[in-house]
């Protein structure tokens, strides 16, 4: 799948924002669910789509389960291509959601004194 095929919904944008905010830290499902508030049925299909598009890289944690006392988790992080695409996609979303010039004028006029 090509990266351009990713449909950036609001939920996808929210998730990309989390990855961009913590670009150096690998994320795992449980943590992402806590941060975004997404249930598993919403989070994992998005992760799968982003992974298939090459925006996310997935890697098994290098821990010994016997030592860690838990199974190895799988981490996700933005790929180089994904980071660029995510920034571009988020910029497009912000632009789409930004108030128009007329709305801005209205907001300024209607606003009270600070």
């Amino acid at each position, binding site marked *: 799948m090509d990266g351009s095929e990713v449909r950036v919904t609001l939920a996808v944008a929210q998730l990309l924002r989390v990855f961009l905010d913590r670009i150096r830290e690998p994320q795992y499902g449980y943590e992402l669910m806590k941060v975004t508030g997404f249930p598993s049925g919403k989070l994992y299909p998005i992760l799968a789509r982003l992974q298939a598009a090459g925006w996310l890289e997935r890697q098994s944690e290098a821990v010994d389960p016997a030592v860690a006392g838990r199974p190895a*988790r799988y981490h996700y992080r933005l790929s180089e291509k994904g980071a660029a695409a995510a920034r571009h996609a988020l910029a497009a979303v912000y632009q789409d959601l930004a108030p128009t010039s007329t709305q801005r004028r209205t907001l300024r006029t209607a606003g009270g004194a600070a």
Partner: protein
Amino acid sequence: MMQWIFGIIGAVVCGPIILALGDLASEEIRGRLDAIPRALLKIAIRRLPHLRDDLEAEWQAELVEFLHGAEALPITRLWRGLKFAAGLARVAPRIGRALGDAPAPLANLADAMEQVRVSGPPAHGDDFVRFFKLAYGVELVPAGSMPNSCQTTYRGPTGELITSTLQGACGTCLWDVTVEHRPGGIVQDVIRCRMRNETREVTGLRMAGGYRAESIAVAAQS
């Protein structure tokens, strides 16, 4: 007076035993409760179109977080574990498709059945064998035929319509078909077909690729 003394002795002796039994029982119940989300997660994994050991490992590791996390109180962890596993069970086929898994020959039985069924309730016996051949290109050697009758029309891969009728009476039927993969067995897989609490086994399924067990329940009205 003696009754009081015996009562006190009894309480001193039996009290700790009752308390210990209570602890054991609650520990047992806790263990059993943890097994419920694990079982649900297994269903989610079985719903993946292809064998995905890596996803299985990932989801199990995540479930451990829910079941043994710092904030995991018994009821809370059960609820969160169930929510996590149920969510995955619901979307597992979608995740598999997103990851680009080519559907295995028997990967998505319910979907395929819906696609090829043109009219009538799903049939069984010979018709079921034909259905498998058409839908998946596999040969099924039936060990027996079902007593119920129903007429079903399937559309074959080249668009042809095939109508099949079985003998007997058929009312509202609830199907529950399980395809079970036996590791290491190439042609000795088992299909269990249950209809009205009757279970028949069909063996000798030849498959063109790997698959996981798949369950469907199709409610059909004759």
